[in-house]
């Protein structure tokens, strides 16, 4: 299997004296959707910031399609799109201009841009809001703009941070459909979320983060087997880890 994202021995955080992440090792393969779960403060967002290249690792390396950000920044950045937990938009640009800038920045052919844009607008029911500014959008609509900007680019790697909160059911379904479609086309997706039932249904593998370390990772069946209860849900296991019942892991 081809590794799109490869995180090895990552030690990181905001201050070198107080690392938040300790020796993280994981990867996301081509055509794979990996769920990153953990309590608030477990280190999910910090991990994502390291992957995006917004934080520098203290130790270890992050490779996207074989290259670290230091080796080739433009290549590294062009490989991924990011959907943040809190929508972060240009206050002074319209919906259409957001999409246009994204497409231009990632060098999407103009015809492809038009085609993809129209489809995404229809999927997220935003066709008649092209000239709107973010100031007039609800949280869910802003989230839709972020999602559309990412799927417009169709990169090799999607980094998604808690996408479901605030989205309407149509938005959630369209998002899940798109993820499936991109996966089938060979994209790798890393998604952090607290909505475990949906994650269990859609993710191929899971990484459970706890206190900056990977408590356990693998497919849901592998994890269940290790846990010793095949009827347990991801939710049960996650709660057990969070409560410190981790004797079964080693």
């Amino acid at each position: 299997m081809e590794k799109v994202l490869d995180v090895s021995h990552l030690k990181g955080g905001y201050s070198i004296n107080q690392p938040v992440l300790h020796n993280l090792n994981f990867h996301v393969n081509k055509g794979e959707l990996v769920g990153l779960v953990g309590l608030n403060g477990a280190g999910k967002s910090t991990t994502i910031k390291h992957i995006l290249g917004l934080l520098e690792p203290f130790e270890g390396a992050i490779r996207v399609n074989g290259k670290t950000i230091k080796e080739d920044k433009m290549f590294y950045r062009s490989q991924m799109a990011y959907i943040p937990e809190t929508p972060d938009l240009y206050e002074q640009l319209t919906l259409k201009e957001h999409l246009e800038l994204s497409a231009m920045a990632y060098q999407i052919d103009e015809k492809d841009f038009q085609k993809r844009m129209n489809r995404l607008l229809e999927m997220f029911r935003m066709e008649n809001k092209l000239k709107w500014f973010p100031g007039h959008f609800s949280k869910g609509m802003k989230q839709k703009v972020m999602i559309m900007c990412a799927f417009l680019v169709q990169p090799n790697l999607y980094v998604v941070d808690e996408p479901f909160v605030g989205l309407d059911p149509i938005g959630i379904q369209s998002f899940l459909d798109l993820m499936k479609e991109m996966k089938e086309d060979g994209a790798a997706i890393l998604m952090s979320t607290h909505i475990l039932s949906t994650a269990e249904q859609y993710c191929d593998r899971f990484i459970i983060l706890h206190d900056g370390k990977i408590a356990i990772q693998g497919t849901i069946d592998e994890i269940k087997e290790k846990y010793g209860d095949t009827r347990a849900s991801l939710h049960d296991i996650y709660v057990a880890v969070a409560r410190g019942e981790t004797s079964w892991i080693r």
Partner: protein
Amino acid sequence: MDKIEALWNRRRSEYWKMASRYWKLITMNSGLTFVLYVILIVGSIYYKKWLDTLTPSFPSALLIALAVGIFVIRSPIRTFIESADLVFLLPLETQLEIYFKKSRLYSFQLQCVTIIVLLVLFSPLYFRMINHSFLALAASAILIFAAKWWNIDCKWQEQYIPQPFMIKLVRAVVSFGFVYAVVNGRLIFLVLILICVMAIISLISRRLANQRLLKWDRLLEMENKQLMILYRFANLFTDVPQLKGKVKPRFWLNALTQFTYGQPSVFKMFYAKTFIRSHEYFGMFIRLTVAGMVIELFLTNGYSTYFILLAVMYISAVQLLTLWRHITPQALADLYPIHEQIKQQNYLQILFSLLVIQGVLLSIAGAVAVGSFISFIILLILSLALNAVFTLGYVRAKIKSTPV
């Protein structure tokens, strides 16, 4: 309830503190008071001259009624509410009667002051054309104040009514008729009829409002609009942080921000659109340019034109430096696979183009003032030289050393 009254009082005094701070800034920095004195003195001379030309057929009462009527009909209510109140004060709505009563009274008093100023302004016209007696004007003023109160009261009832447009229209027509009849002074019968009409309208709007709920978001909008008046005015003289981040579409300027599709245009588009739509840049640029052009037209001796052109362009350029640091969304712009150099070039291109436009405008004004075509060429070359040195020299070096 004491606490609610105290809340209102605190908010009012906080507002006045803020307003007086802005007022101090404005009067200290701009010589506005001086300009006002000049306008007052010059204006009064011309006013007197104008009065002397009037014939008895001049519609004085209509003019006064129009001017005063607008301020009688326009009855915004200062409630000092904030958006958080829609969450925190909403549950107390039933106890807020005193709060809103104070708001109405306060708005009434302030708006009466405006009306008094207007009446003083029109008093020479009134005394000459309508009635010599001061008592007549004073009596009119009292009736107009009563109409003002009636308008405020109706406006308050309208905050409960879902579609108050018709009531507003009727209120406006009746108020204008009333003010006209009062100022005219010979239509006492009409005044009496209109008082009856007003009473009936009050009754109707009260009944309509009674079955309805207070529209809080409308109250908030009304409050914000009034705050904006202060902010916008102060913004003519100084930076108002509350206006930062405000976006104006200005779609009519969109043609200026069309660039060829493709990666090299990303930040050109970003900077151009940010310049045009974000409050702080465009307004500043236009103000400085227009001010420069006006000064050039009045000061034509010696080398002053050259100096003004250089000074205005320099100040504008320095102000536009902040455009480089305009915050971009991390999730989008900061992750674009675009070389930093392209971004820098894009910024310099936009800055250069803006200064070229300004240079041309200032050169035209300067040349018109001096009255020679040669000076247009000289001014243009001068502006380009400054632009080149500043943009391609200073700014280029500066942004390279301090990337965002």
